[in-house]
C-alpha cells in the first residue's frame, strides 16, 4: 500500500515541477500571472507603503544586508511578542500555560521561527497564547518562508544573468513571494485541512465528560492557520507538542499527503525554475532526478528498518512494524515517508516520534540533515544547497578530464571556489564543534536524561544537525529547554540561515558579474546521467568524509550493539 502512495507522491511532485517552476519564473521576473488582476494593486500599494522602488536593483552585498536586517527585525518582533504574551488577550487560560516563557526560550523560539528552523523547545498547548501563535508564529511562518524564497530567486538570477552587477531587489522578491506564492496557496491548502478536520477557533479548552464518567480537557485553537503554511514554507513547527502526529493537526492520511506535497512541491519546482532561467532546462531536470534517487534510497533504508518490531521485543509475539511513537491512521508507511520528506526539506514537521525509531530508521533522516538539505531542501534555500554541491562536482569532474571547470556556463575560478568551499565546510565545522562542546560539558550531557548510550549521543548530534540545516526535527528524548541548548542551538540556526545564505549570495554575485561561456565539445555536460552520478558521488563522499566518524558513534554503534 505504501509503495503505491510513495510512487504517486513522487509522480505528483515531478508532474507539478514544470508548471509550478514556470510560474515561479513569472513571479521571479515580474512577468504577468493569472493572479495579476487581483494582486497587482495590492502589490503596488505595499511598495508605496514600505517605500520600495521596485525598479531599483541591489548588489549582492545590499541584497544580503537587506535579507539579514529583515530577519533580525522579525526575530526582534517575535521575541517581544513572546516575552509579553501573558498580557495578550484571548485563550488559552493561564492555568493551562504551565511552561514559563523565559528569556532564553523566547530568544531560541524567535530565532528558530525566523530562520524557518522552528526548533521547538516548548509544547505549544502548554506554553503559548493563541495570539502569540497567530501574530507571532503564523506571521513568521509566512515571512521566513518568503525571505528564503527571495534569496533563492536572487541566487538563480546570479546564474541566469550575464555581466550584471545586481541580483534583484530583496523587498520586491519578498513581497511577490508572499502575495503570488505563499498566501494564495496557503489559503487553499488551509481550507482543505479544515475540511478534513483541522480546527480553527479561538475557544477555551473544551472540557468533555466521557462515557466512563471521566473528564478530558481538549486543547483548541486556530490550528489550521498554522498547519498548512508550516509545511508550505518548509518551517515545520507545529501548533501542538506532538506536531503532525496530533490528530487535530493532521487528522487523516489525506491531510498528511497534502502536507508532504506542500513541503516538497516548491523546492522541487525551483530546480525547473533554475533550468528555465539559465536556459539549461535539462540541467534542472537532472538536479531533480538526483534528488529523487537520493530520496528513494533514504526512504528504502528508513522504511525497511521500521517494518519489523524492534529486536528487543522479539520474544513478545507482536505482529506489525515498530509502532511505538506512530499513529494507527498513518501506520509505518506514511510515518517513514513523512520522516524522509521532512528531514530533507528544512521542515521537520514530524508525524511520528523519531526518537522511538530503530537505529537505521534514525540514520536515514540524520544523514539527510547532515548532508545539508540537498534533496528538495528548504524553500528557496534548497536550490543553492544542491547547486553548491553541483559546482563542487563540476569542479572535480573538470579536474578529472583536464578542462577548465564551469557550471551552467559560468566559470568556476579560484574566487568562486573559495566561497563554495567555505559553504561546503560550514556545516561540518559548526555541527561537529557544537556537538563536541555539548558532549564534553556537563550542561550538554545533563540534557540526555531519557535514552542512554549511543542514542543519547545521537540526540545531541541530531539537534545541532537539525538546527544547522534550519530543519527543526528533533529526537524528542533530548531535554532541550535549558539555557545550554537554547543558546547553543541559536548559534547553529543563525549560521545555517544567514551564514550559508550570505555565502550563496556572494557566490551568486560573482557568477552574475561573469559572461556566459558558450557550450563546446570540450564542455563537461552538466545535464548528462554521468554528471548525475558524479554529483551523487560528490554529495555522498563529502558527507561521509565529514560525518562518518560521528555517525559511527551514534546510530551505527547503536545498530551494532543489539
Amino acid at each position, binding site marked *: *500500500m505504501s509503495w503505491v502512495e510513495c510512487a*504517486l507522491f513522487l509522480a505528483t511532485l515531478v508532474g507539478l515541477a514544470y508548471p509550478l517552476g514556470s510560474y515561479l519564473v513569472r513571479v521571479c521576473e515580474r512577468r504577468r500571472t493569472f493572479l495579476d488582476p487581483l494582486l497587482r494593486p495590492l502589490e503596488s500599494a*505595499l511598495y508605496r*507603503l514600505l*517605500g520600495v522602488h521596485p525598479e*531599483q*536593483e*541591489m*548588489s*549582492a*552585498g*545590499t541584497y*544580503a*544586508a537587506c535579507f*539579514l*536586517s529583515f530577519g*533580525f*527585525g522579525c526575530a*526582534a*518582533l517575535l521575541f517581544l511578542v513572546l516575552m509579553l504574551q501573558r498580557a495578550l488577550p484571548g485563550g488559552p487560560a493561564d492555568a*493551562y500555560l504551565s511552561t514559563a516563557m523565559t528569556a532564553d526560550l523566547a530568544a531560541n523560539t524567535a530565532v528558530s521561527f525566523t530562520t524557518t528552523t522552528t526548533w521547538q523547545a516548548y*509544547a505549544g498547548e502548554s506554553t503559548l497564547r493563541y495570539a502569540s501563535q*497567530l*501574530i507571532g508564529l503564523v*506571521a*513568521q511562518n509566512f*515571512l521566513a518562508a518568503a525571505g528564503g524564497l527571495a534569496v533563492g530567486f536572487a541566487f538563480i538570477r546570479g546564474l541566469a544573468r550575464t555581466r550584471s552587477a545586481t541580483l534583484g531587489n530583496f523587498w520586491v522578491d519578498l513581497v511577490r513571494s*508572499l502575495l503570488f506564492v505563499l*498566501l494564495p496557496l496557503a489559503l487553499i491548502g488551509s481550507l482543505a485541512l*479544515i475540511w478534513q478536520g483541522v*480546527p*480553527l477557533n479561538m475557544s477555551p479548552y473544551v472540557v*468533555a465528560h*466521557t462515557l*466512563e464518567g*471521566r473528564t*478530558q480537557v481538549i486543547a483548541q485553537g486556530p490550528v489550521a*492557520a498554522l498547519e498548512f503554511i508550516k509545511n508550505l514554507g518548509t518551517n515545520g513547527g507545529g501548533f501542538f507538542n506532538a506536531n503532525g*502526529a496530533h*490528530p487535530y493537526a493532521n*487528522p487523516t*492520511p489525506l491531510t*498528511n*499527503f497534502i502536507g508532504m506535497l506542500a513541503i516538497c512541491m516548491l523546492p522541487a519546482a525551483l530546480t525547473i525554475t533554475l533550468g528555465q532561467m539559465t536556459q539549461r532546462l535539462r540541467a534542472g531536470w537532472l538536479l531533480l532526478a538526483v534528488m529523487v534517487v537520493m530520496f528513494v534510497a533514504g526512504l528504502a533504508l528508513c522504511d525497511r528498518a521500521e517494518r519489523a518490531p524492534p529486536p*528487543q*521485543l522479539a520474544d513478545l509475539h507482536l505482529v*506489525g*512494524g515498530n*509502532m511505538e*511513537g*506512530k499513529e494507527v491512521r498513518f501506520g509505518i508507511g506514511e510515518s517513514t515517508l513523512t520522516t524522509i520528506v521532512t528531514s530533507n526539506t528544512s521542515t521537520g514537521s514530524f508525524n511520528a*516520534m523519531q*526518537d522511538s525509531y530503530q537505529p537505521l530508521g534514525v540514520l536515514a533522516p540524520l544523514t539527510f540533515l547532515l548532508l545539508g538539505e540537498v534533496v528538495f531542501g528548504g524553500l528557496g534555500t534548497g536550490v543553492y544547497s544542491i547547486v553548491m554541491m553541483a559546482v563542487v562536482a563540476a569542479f572535480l569532474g573538470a579536474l578529472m578530464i583536464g578542462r577548465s571547470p564551469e557550471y551552467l556556463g559560468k566559470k568556476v575560478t579560484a574566487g568562486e571556489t573559495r566561497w563554495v568551499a567555505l559553504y561546503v565546510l560550514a556545516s561540518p565545522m559548526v555541527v561537529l564543534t557544537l556537538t563536541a562542546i555539548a558532549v564534553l560539558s556537563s550542561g550538554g550531557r545533563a540534557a540526555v536524561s*531519557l535514552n542512554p548510550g*549511543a*542514542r543519547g549521543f545521537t540526540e545531541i548530534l541530531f539537534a545541532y544537525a537539525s538546527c544547522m540545516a534550519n530543519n527543526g526535527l528533533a529526537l524528542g*528524548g533530548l531535554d532541550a529547554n535549558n539555557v545550554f541548548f537554547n543558546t547553543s542551538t541559536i548559534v547553529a540556526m543563525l549560521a545555517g540561515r544567514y551564514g550559508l545564505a550570505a555565502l550563496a549570495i556572494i557566490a551568486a554575485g*560573482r557568477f552574475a558579474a561573469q559572461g556566459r561561456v558558450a557550450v563546446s565539445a570540450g564542455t563537461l555536460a552538466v545535464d548528462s546521467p554521468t554528471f548525475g552520478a558524479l554529483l551523487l558521488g560528490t554529495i555522498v563522499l563529502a558527507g561521509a568524509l565529514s560525518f562518518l566518524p560521528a555517525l559511527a558513534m551514534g546510530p551505527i554503534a*547503536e545498530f551494532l*550493539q543489539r
Partner: protein
Amino acid sequence: MPLAVIANGALTRLFIACLAVASGSTRADDESRGGAPAPTPGVIREVQLKKQLRTAVLSVLVLSLLGGAVFPLVLFTIAAPLFPVQASGSLLLQRGTVVGSTLIGQEFTGMEWFHPRPSAAGSGYDGTASGGTNLAPSNPKLAEGAPGFAGIRALATEYRQNNGLAPDAPIPIDAVTRSGSGLDPDISPENALLQVTRIARARGLEASILRRLVAQHVMRPQFGFLGEPRVPVLELNLALERLQHPETRAAHPAR
C-alpha cells in the same frame, strides 16, 4: 520597538562592513582573470542603506500583520460557514454535554468497552499534553518498564490476560505501544476484534453482533491507498452504548 530598530541598524552595519571586506578582497581576482567587467567600487550603490532600514522595519510590521492577522481572519471568514463542525474541533454532543471529539482519543478502562492504545499524553489521553514516550527501542525502559511506567512486556501480559488470550498468542503491536501524539483516536481492526470476546462477556451480548459492529466501523484507507485500515474507538464505543440502550440519543456533532 526602538530597541529593535537600534539592534537592527547596528547588526546591519556590521554585516555590510563584513561584506565590503569580503567583496573587496575578491576584486583583485576579477581583474586579473580578465574578461569579466570590473565591478564598480563600493557595495551599496543602487539603493541607500538608511532607506533600506526604514523599509526593513516597516515591512516586518506590515507583513507580520498581513500573515498573522489578515490571513487568519480571511481564512476564518471563509471556513466558519463552510465547515462549522470541523472548525470547532469535531466535538460530539450527547444530551447537551460534550462527550469528546471524534478526532481525539480518550481513555477507556472498563471491561465493557473497547480499549484504546496505551498513551503517553500526561497521565493518559490528556488533551492538553500531547506527546509520545520518546523511548528508543534500545532503551531497556521501553520493553521492561520502570517504577510508575508500564513497559511493553507488562502491557502485553495485561492485554492477553484481559482478553483471555494464551501467553504466547500473537497480538497486534498497536495494542501495546504508545502513539506519537498520545491522543491516537484509532486502533487497528485486528486489535478491536481481539477485544470482542471480553466485551461480549462483560455485556452479555453475542460476539457475532460485536464483530459486525466492528466491521461497520472499520475505516478503509482513504481513496483505497492512503493510510492504514483503522477503527475509531470513541465512535465504536458510542455505537456499543446505543446497541444496548437504543433509547439514548445518538451523539451528534457540535456546531
